[in-house]
């Protein structure tokens, strides 16, 4: 089967310091893959490269069988590769609902035209799903860390991506928040067939959510195990 997302021989160095040294990985449609590794092992750099935020020094990234190395982050999102950030950077002045409407508005402007309020119903439904419906009118700047993570996930899910790249989305969350987000991811994976690559420092959590776990060490995938 053709992999949905594929990275081949990715290399990246910052100021001569080699962070990724020939990373190769792939995600099948609907697959849940975990990525673990010590601090500084290049997990976030790999997510940045897969999402189009950073360009690799060498190597290729393919999506649905075509090379997407030249696509910037916004184009990859529209193509179906969404990501979350380790440190969410919300829109301080926008409300929670507006923040979720942004990706929908951007998608509407790019072809799927309709009435100005057309996106509001799906956005509200998404906020119900991530448990932010009651905070829909609250400015993003006033959200707690847990709510910011939920919003980050809602933003990523807004345009029904085929692949989710989740960079430590569960860090600094309470146990209940974590359980809810895990359930949400599992639902998205099961019902929408969304594949995800989940970066975490928590092996038990990865084991409970992913079908395969990759270990990134010394700039390479040093270990791969099925769960």
């Amino acid at each position, binding site marked *: 089967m053709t992999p949905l997302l594929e990275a081949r021989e990715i290399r990246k160095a910052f100021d001569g310091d080699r962070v990724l040294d020939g990373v190769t990985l792939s995600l099948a449609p609907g697959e849940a893959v975990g990525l673990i590794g010590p601090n500084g092992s290049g997990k976030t750099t790999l997510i940045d490269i897969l*999402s189009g*935020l950073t360009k690799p020094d060498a190597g290729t990234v393919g999506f649905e069988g075509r090379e997407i190395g030249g696509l*910037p*982050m*916004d*184009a990859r*999102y*529209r193509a179906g590769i*969404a*990501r979350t*950030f380790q440190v*969410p*950077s*919300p*829109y*301080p*002045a*926008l*409300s929670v*609902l*507006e*923040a979720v*409407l*942004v*990706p929908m*508005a*951007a*998608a*509407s*402007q*790019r072809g799927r035209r309709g009435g*100005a*309020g057309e996106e*509001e119903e799906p*956005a*509200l439904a998404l906020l119900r799903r991530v448990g932010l419906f*009651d905070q*829909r*009118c*609250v400015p*993003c700047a006033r959200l707690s860390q847990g709510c910011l993570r939920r919003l980050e996930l809602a*933003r*990523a899910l*807004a*345009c029904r991506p085929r692949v989710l790249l989740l960079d430590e989305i569960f860090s600094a969350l309470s146990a209940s928040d974590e359980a809810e987000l895990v359930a949400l991811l599992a639902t998205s994976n099961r019902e929408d067939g969304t594949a995800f690559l989940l970066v975490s420092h928590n092996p038990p959590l990865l084991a409970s959510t992913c079908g395969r776990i990759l270990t990134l060490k010394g700039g390479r995938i040093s270990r791969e195990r099925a769960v």
Partner: protein
Amino acid sequence: MEKTTGAMAATAGILLFLPLAGLDSFLLDVMATGFLLSVFAGSWDIVGGVAGQVSLGHALFFGSATYACAVLTTLLRWPFPLAAAAAILLSSAAGAAVGVLSAPLKGPFVAVVTLALGEAAHEAALGHIFPGGAGGYAWGGEGGVPVTLPWETASPLSSYYAALAFLFAATWAMVLFRRSREGLILRAVAGSELAARASGVDAARHKRRAFAISAGLAGAAGVAYAAHMGRAAATDFSLELSFQAAAFAAVGGRGTVIGPVVAAVLLHTLLQGLAVPPGTRILFFAFTLLLFLRFFPGGIAGALAAARERGRRLPGRKRKPARARRAHP
């Protein structure tokens, strides 16, 4: 939206009947000029506030339109409506070009580039002489170029009402733009370009568009101003004008559109009514800008919203349930 409509209707009512209170022709003229400059301040807010791209050379777009209008009607003898349309298009094109230059830049670099371009245009307007005036008379330089209008003279009262109509039409259009999909996307880019890009927004493309739209609006204000003054002058490109728009926006509340427009009407009328000299005015604008950016970054609109929020959070105050349909407050 209902609040905005109500406030605009109430303000329109007051301004409609204000001349009946016996304003003299000087004050009518000051207010008419203020209305036109308010539209310019609102146009600044589209790019500087809504899109978060602080332009310190916005007079470039205003002056391009006044000069285009003057040169086309007087030197090339174009009919005024055609010249006005061409002038607005020219401003918008200038905005698109500036947008191309500044879209890859961030923060202070946008301000520096726009400031440099605005000042270059100001110097060019001061130094350029247009030959071919009537009787061998040359136009340009500090004195500028006259605008040939299809009407002889307009009474202060008719100028006041024409400027007021323009103010309301332009403000309404700008408010609608801020609440549109494009407005939402620009506010997202202003808030966090990284998050916007990760949401599928081509930030550079939208910033270029914001410059083109904002410059087109500044051009419309410039055309109306040129028609009102009967002349395009080098000061139409001045740093004072750019600072003035930025200061009005900072005072009224950047990104709100209505705030800068209201602040522009009030402050312009106050400063002109008190006959504050130009040198003092530019100092006033610079200090006001610094003061508000440091202590009231949200301007008066932001301070009022914060006070309202504090009041709502006071112990014993019942919170109103949030309204479901307020997606674009």
